[in-house]
């Protein structure tokens, strides 16, 4: 036997041994007649080959990367798109009682906001999304504060500044104007920590 034939014989033996000890041979082979229509057994249903699992992990990695990139891209795009502010009447603003609040949207349907009428009768309006994780804030009449129920953040109902909790910056400020006895929202401003 020459050297080349000897090596081929050795490789065949190794492959034969591998096939004997491998636990992943023919896991997808259907043997029973019913498996032609329903080709899974309870025992083999849970079996996944290493190659399949490796493919799954790589696809998961791709999906996570695309998810992060897509989410970041959409957020950045939305943030950079210019907002056009046109005065919008806040329906029902004049009828709310002192010490209560009214929800509205400005400037678009996605931009929720809250109008607060203080005990002294003055009006103030802020974005309703908490600056921590965008949970909606509500006006607590008992404590006279804007509170975020998700992580216990608190804001001043007069200035929108952070009073306590995890929010990193004040609420968006909405400028109001009174025109012909009606209250209009005219501008929405994103503020940083300096207010």
């Amino acid at each position, binding site marked *: 036997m020459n050297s080349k034939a000897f090596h081929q014989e050795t490789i065949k033996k190794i492959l034969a041994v*591998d096939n004997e000890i491998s636990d992943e041979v023919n896991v997808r082979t259907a043997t029973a007649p019913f498996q032609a229509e329903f080709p899974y057994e309870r025992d083999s249903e849970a079996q996944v080959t290493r190659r399949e699992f490796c493919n799954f992990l790589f696809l998961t990695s791709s999906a*996570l990367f695309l998810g992060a990139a897509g989410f970041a891209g959409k957020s950045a795009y939305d943030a950079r798109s210019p907002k056009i502010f046109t005065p919008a009447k806040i329906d029902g603003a004049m009828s709310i009682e002192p010490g209560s609040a009214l929800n509205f949207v400005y400037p678009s349907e996605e931009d929720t906001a809250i109008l607060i009428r203080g005990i002294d009768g003055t009006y103030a309006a802020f974005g309703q999304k908490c600056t*921590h994780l965008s949970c909606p804030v509500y006006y607590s009449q008992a404590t006279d504060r804007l509170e975020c129920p998700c992580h216990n953040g608190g804001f001043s109902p007069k200035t929108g500044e952070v009073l306590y909790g995890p929010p990193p910056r004040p609420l968006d400020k909405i400028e109001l104007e009174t025109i012909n006895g009606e209250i209009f929202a005219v501008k929405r401003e994103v503020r940083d920590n300096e207010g």
Partner: protein
Amino acid sequence: MKDNAKPQRPQSRGLSAVWQARLAMLVMINVAQLWILSAAVEAALAQTYSQLAPLVIASGICWLIALSIFLWWRPAGEGGRRY
């Protein structure tokens, strides 16, 4: 000479170790990418957009490592064999 030509143990044991290592690394990369995705969601909800680019780059690096593991980090001598 003949003893040296034969493997002392089944070759698949070494190949299995490499496969396990590949899978373990891919799992760790997936966990890291899951954390990065959650951090990106949190940064976007908090409107701290400056954090988004580094997070996406980190996720992309993780994906490139996963790609290299998937395509090229194969056991030596595996050739076209299927496991």
